[in-house]
């Protein structure tokens, strides 16, 4: 692997940038691997990378039905934060935020992680009380989060309208300064390149069609469009398609898949300095380095695998954006798209072992999986390497839906996230 550096950039520039090597080879499946990851999104590629780097398991294949990073990794609004209410969630998401720091150096690939701050707006007394509770809970868990008055919020984000006569006036905001954005494609590419350099095979356009289990029930391997691939360990990181894959192993999961939409505006000069979220009016907005406003809409109400959504969902979000940021009323939107998110009943992920020996799962991230990419990859790798969950992901087991130990972030945030 050619190491990227200022020197290599300079040297290649002299050659007219004609001799850059490919980032990773197009691998063909081998007959057997020590571990297989199903799904080459950020989470799956991250798991493969950490399996190879931290646990020395390099005979790993990442199998992807489409193209690498083409699912929710390439369809989200790139927001990174860890200001979750419950202890378990704070530990889980902050583990990821800590890994975001230094990820570009670790991968030798610029993932453009920008700690520009995530500000969550409070529009009513309930929001104010709920966010202040979040702030105190976060700080007890060592997660930064602070309260801003409406004036301070306006100072942090000048486009914000804090007129007290607004339909949903801004009464204050919770700000996580370590939160921000990262370049989603770069995350997938960076992990893929670094994992491939350690010997991981990345096999695209190769859907898994069945999961083979032995007489004792344990995993023997996966059937794919390019034949059977043997492995005693299979980790599933397939987002919206997780229920479909788990059913191949005979497991029914507490998941439902919904389309989640996002859209971007025409690119404009830097106008928006941070990430702003409003749960009450339901709007997420930030500006990419390319200049587009990146806007997150809600999920459609029905289960679907269509990777598109209805226009009225987008319209609803844009109405909210225009209300909070009146200066964007004349902006034109460039494109919108949908991704399929797998939602659990408590809106917390399932990350750990399954009842099938050798089968591991990382799913249920719902509408907020991107922020957890490095953490989820790291913890899935740990769980697969040790055949037991790390203490951080141990509470996010499948059993919680049976024993009732839910991690109810749905109730905590009163919004899908």
């Amino acid at each position: 692997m050619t190491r990227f550096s200022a020197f290599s950039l300079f040297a290649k520039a002299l050659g007219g940038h004609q001799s850059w090597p490919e980032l990773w080879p197009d691998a063909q499946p081998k007959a057997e691997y020590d571990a297989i990851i199903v799904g080459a999104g950020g989470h799956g590629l991250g798991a493969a990378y950490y399996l190879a780097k931290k646990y020395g398991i390099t005979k790993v294949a990442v199998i992807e039905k489409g193209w690498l990073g083409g699912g929710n990794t390439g369809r989200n609004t790139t927001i990174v934060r860890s200001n979750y209410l419950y202890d378990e969630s704070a530990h889980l998401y902050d583990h990821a935020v800590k890994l975001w720091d230094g990820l570009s150096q670790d991968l030798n690939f610029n993932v453009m992680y920008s700690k520009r701050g995530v500000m969550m707006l409070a529009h009513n007394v309930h929001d104010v009380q709920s966010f202040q509770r979040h702030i105190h809970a976060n700080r007890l868990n060592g997660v930064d989060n602070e309260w801003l008055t409406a004036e301070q919020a306006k100072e942090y984000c000048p486009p914000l309208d804090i007129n007290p006569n607004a339909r949903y006036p801004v009464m204050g905001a919770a700000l996580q300064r370590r939160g921000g954005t990262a370049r989603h494609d770069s995350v997938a590419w960076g992990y893929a390149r670094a994992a491939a350099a350690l010997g991981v095979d990345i096999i695209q356009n190769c859907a898994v069609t069945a999961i083979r289990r032995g007489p004792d029930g344990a995993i023997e391997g996966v059937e794919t469009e390019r034949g059977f691939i043997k492995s005693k360990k299979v980790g599933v990181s397939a987002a919206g398609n997780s229920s479909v894959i788990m059913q191949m192993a005979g497991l029914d999961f507490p998941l439902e898949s919904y389309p989640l939409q996002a859209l971007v505006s025409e690119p404009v000069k830097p106008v928006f300095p941070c990430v702003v979220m409003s749960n009450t009016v339901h709007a997420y907005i930030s500006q990419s380095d390319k200049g587009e406003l990146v806007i997150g809409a809600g999920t459609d109400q029905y289960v679907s695998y269509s990777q598109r959504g209805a226009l009225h969902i987008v319209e609803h979000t844009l109405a909210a954006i225009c209300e909070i940021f009146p200066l964007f009323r004349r902006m034109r939107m460039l494109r919108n798209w949908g991704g399929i998110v797998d939602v659990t009943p408590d809106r917390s992920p399932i990350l750990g072992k399954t009842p099938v020996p050798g089968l591991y799962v990382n799913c249920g991230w719902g509408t907020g999986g991107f922020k957890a990419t490095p953490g989820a990859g790291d913890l899935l790798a740990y769980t697969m390497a040790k055949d037991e969950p790390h203490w951080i992901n141990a509470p996010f087991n499948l059993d919680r839906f049976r024993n009732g130990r839910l991690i109810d972030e749905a109730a905590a945030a009163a919004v899908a996230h």
Partner: protein
Amino acid sequence: MILIHCPYCDDTRPELEFAYAGEAHIARPLDPSALSDADWERYLFIRANPKGRHNERWRHVHGCGRFFNAVRDTVTDKFELTYKAGEPRK
């Protein structure tokens, strides 16, 4: 936006008039205290979430207000048919 046929109004109306109400034909247990933890889990949390034909409930909120069932393909989002609540699974 999709168009949905309400079997009570016998009219095809835009999705905005309807509210989705989850998977259909999930019966509340008749004797809840006799249920095992695994059965409770199945009743409360486990959903079919199929890629393809899905039996689901809808409610004509901004119309007759009644619940009915539908069969929809979750890949194309096309409705195959809708039928009244209480009728057997189709």
